[in-house]
């Protein structure tokens, strides 16, 4: 039982990381109907920028100040990125169909990856924001030997939860939230009721950039900032399909499901199937969900009158 719980908790905490990346995808899809292929690149760029800023500043000032400055700089960088994407990529493509915009984001992905490496170099960088990394045993009284968890993973979960609550409030209660949903549905109509498209797009790409920064910091603390971070984004795709492209809670629940499922599959099915299940489990799960529930667990049903 102790071992089972340990696998479960390990899986859930790993899933939080997937959920964080998936969240960035969902935000942009909800608000503009674009599947943003560049989300992984944005995570990578945000991580590089933040790590570089930390290295430069921590030599000259106390840790807390360096951390704050670096966060500010990295946020500024993501705002600038959002502005540039809106101004030079999205604005000329207003009223184009989803596929065109999707292709454009592939271009953006290469641009962002390339520029980030050009500016910050392509060495693997460490991120240390002072989150505790000690492993600890919990529930030792209930189980023999207790359950091993990593403090960093727990902190990640807390951060993710706060982020989700804030974003949900924003989307459901605010005028801007409703405006975002309107823009996703119909650009023309949204403009005609007075919603400034360019501003909305800037806001949503900025938020996605902010989410990317958070994801970069927690991933970076775990595995370092390296090009492989962009592949993490690929893991977010099955999470999106399982959770539904338009649902913020969906991204979280699906992230947890995928993280948990992976670990269980690896531990319990691995020995009989030859291992390596963790690599492909998420995609098979996504395929299965597509077969029985194409809109995902929490996605909006697509309604079309014929």
């Amino acid at each position, binding site marked *: 039982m102790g071992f089972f719980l340990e696998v479960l908790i390990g899986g859930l905490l790993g899933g939080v990381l997937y959920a964080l990346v998936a969240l960035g995808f969902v935000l942009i899809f909800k608000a503009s109907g674009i599947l943003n292929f560049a989300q992984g690149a944005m995570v990578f760029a945000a991580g590089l920028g933040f790590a570089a800023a930390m290295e430069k500043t921590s030599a000259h000032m106390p840790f807390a100040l360096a951390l704050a400055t670096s966060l500010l700089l990295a946020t500024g960088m993501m705002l600038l990125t959002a502005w540039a994407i809106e101004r030079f990529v999205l604005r000329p493509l207003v009223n184009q169909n989803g596929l065109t915009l999707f292709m454009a984001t592939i271009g953006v992905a290469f641009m962002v990856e390339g520029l980030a490496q050009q500016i910050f170099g392509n060495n693997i960088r460490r991120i240390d924001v002072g989150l505790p990394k000690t492993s600890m045993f919990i529930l030792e009284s209930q189980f023999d030997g207790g359950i091993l968890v990593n403090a960093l993973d727990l902190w990640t979960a807390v951060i993710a939860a706060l982020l989700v609550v804030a974003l949900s409030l924003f989307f459901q209660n605010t005028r801007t939230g409703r405006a975002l949903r309107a823009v996703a549905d119909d650009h023309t*109509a949204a403009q005609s009721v007075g919603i400034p498209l360019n501003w909305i797009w800037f806001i949503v790409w900025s938020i996605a950039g902010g989410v990317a920064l958070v994801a970069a910091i927690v991933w970076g603390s775990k595995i370092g900032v390296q090009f492989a971070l962009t592949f993490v984004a690929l893991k977010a795709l099955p999470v999106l399909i399982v959770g539904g492209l338009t649902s913020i809670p969906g991204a979280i629940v699906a992230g947890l499901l995928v993280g948990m499922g992976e670990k269980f599959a690896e531990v319990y099915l691995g020995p009989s199937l030859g291992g390596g299940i963790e690599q492909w489990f998420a995609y098979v799960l996504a395929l299965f969900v597509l077969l029985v529930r194409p809109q995902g667990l929490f996605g909006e049903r697509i309604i079309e009158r014929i």
Partner: protein
Amino acid sequence: MNAPIPRRDIASSTSAPLLSVDNISLAFGGVKAITDVSFDIRKGEIRAIIGPNGAGKTSMLNCINGFYHPQAGSITYKGNKRERMRPHVAAAQGIARTFQNVALFKGMSTLDNILTGRSLKVRRGLLWQAIWFGPALAEQIENRIAVERIIDFLEIESIRKIPVGKLSYGLQKRVELGRALAMEPDLLLLDEPMAGMNTEEKEDMCRFILDANRRLGTTIALIEHDMGVVMDLSDRVVVLEYGRKIADGTPAEVKRNEKVIAAYLGVPH
């Protein structure tokens, strides 16, 4: 039923125009959509824009609310000449519209769709809105009341919560009118509000348009193909053909105009 509302004599009045279009030309590459057209819309009137298919009627509305920018000529609205106005700015200045092919937010309910029309009426900051409390709450309630009034006015109480993608075409057009009215516009542009409707639905729509004009005082520019409707509703009519203006006047004058008759019936060559 309400008693018939007496016709006013706007056509002969000399009230200042709410909007005037002066010598506008619009081309897409080599295709001329509008050539040197001028007309005005007076405060409080229903102004019909008619003409055969491809005459440039919708292009004209798109110029007025800023989707298109004419290459030549100018548009003066509320006394200010406008340069390259963007649609959301036009909306902020009180121009609302509906579209030929219904443009609603299909995944949202009727209520939410009409609420988007109140986008510009929300004044409180993001933080207040997010916590849904205090002045922001009062404002939300105010907006909801305004929307409920419109739902009541358009007799669509029963479909309040239904996602508009599921509604019939006629009802969708009605919701779209509701969203435009929720903006409390000074100038309402209606692009074929009755296309594809049966007689009963058309009568309802006529009633709503007249009510919006007479009771709410909304100035309306209307594109419509049903001549009976145009003659009944409008105070003045402008006729376009191949992007040029061929007639302008009261319904009775336009009906007698030979060019108009030729445009609609064709002339022997």
